[in-house]
């Protein structure tokens, strides 16, 4: 009983562990799968990502060589990035991607220039 009371008093006088979120942003690692980006210029429309997606979130238009990710279905598992033969799908660690209307989730995220993949 005494050990718990001592802990409580010690924590009363130390800095809180949680961050004050909107003012101080939390840090995530570089590997975090936060948002999906597709480099449309180099996509060859092989449709491997569409076949392998567990939820059917990617839809590829083979004539225009354009692929659309439905972000309300995407579970950010990373399988499409693994199967893509030309490495045009990649994830950035941006975690503030919520929208207020469901239609806005169909819009693609612009994203900065693609970074080269390790493999």
């Amino acid at each position, binding site marked *: *009983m005494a050990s718990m*009371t001592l802990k409580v008093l010690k*924590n009363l006088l130390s800095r809180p562990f949680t961050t*004050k979120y909107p003012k101080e942003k939390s840090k995530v690692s570089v590997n975090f799968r936060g948002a999906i980006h597709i480099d449309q210029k180099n996509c060859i429309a092989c449709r491997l990502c569409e076949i392998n997606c567990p939820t059917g979130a990617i839809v590829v238009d083979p004539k225009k060589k354009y692929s659309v990710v439905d972000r309300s279905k995407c579970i950010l598992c990373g399988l499409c990035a693994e199967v893509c033969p030309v490495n045009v799908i990649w994830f950035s660690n941006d975690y503030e991607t919520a929208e207020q209307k469901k239609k806005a989730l169909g819009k693609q995220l612009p994203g900065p220039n693609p970074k080269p993949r390790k493999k």
Partner: protein
Amino acid sequence: MIEIFYAALLIPLALVFEGVRRRLVARMHNRVGPPLLQPFYDIMKLFSKETTPRKNIVFNLVPYLALLCSLAMILIVPFSVLGFDYDFIVLGYIFILQDTFYIFGAVASRSPFGMLASVRELLLMLGYEITFLIVLALFFHSTGLLGFQEYNAELAFTKLPFASLFLLFTAFVILRITPYDVMIAEPEISAGFFSEYSGRSLALLEIAEFIKDLVIYLLLGFLIVGKAYALLLAPLFMLFYMVMLTSSPRYSTVVTVKTFLFLALLAFADIFILV
């Protein structure tokens, strides 16, 4: 007449006390905690929500009656306003009356959670209410006076150590602090007293609870140390009780009831020793 102005100021003070209390508990948990004015936002939000439909007349009246009791308490304890000189019997009576209203409300809500909560509260009442009344009587007997306005004992805990200890103990149950808060145990009976109220009724009940907490902190300082220091010492008592709240889990019902029945016996024996 300035006392009425002070008395009206005590109601927002009770809400600010609650805000400080939540922030203190959060710091003990090593997290930041809500803003200091959070209880105001909560009450305003509750007023905008839908109230539970009319069940029966007792269920609907209980929040108003409980709030009336709380307001009556706050007019007595710090200073008697309006020229009436209340004594400790009225104070003890109002405390028991408020608890009885809670029990009526819980039983009238006809939910199984309410039934269990009311049973637990009734069992506990045997223990702590008797002790509370006896302790109040001992404090006032030591100065020979009965009224709150003339009470002037200073550092009463040196003359009445056991009574002060019993008073600190009963405050655990009145404030609903673990380890003795079985009647409001959330995981077991989902806060049985208040589980059927929502909206305006719940807002009034919450305000009644906040005011009662402030009254108890003021009363402890008033009786144990002295009339002038009550407001200064209220935060210290709150700190003590919050440290107890965060460092101990809840005892089971049987153990709690036995503890307070034993305490009532000790208080009864104390009458003969008068210490």
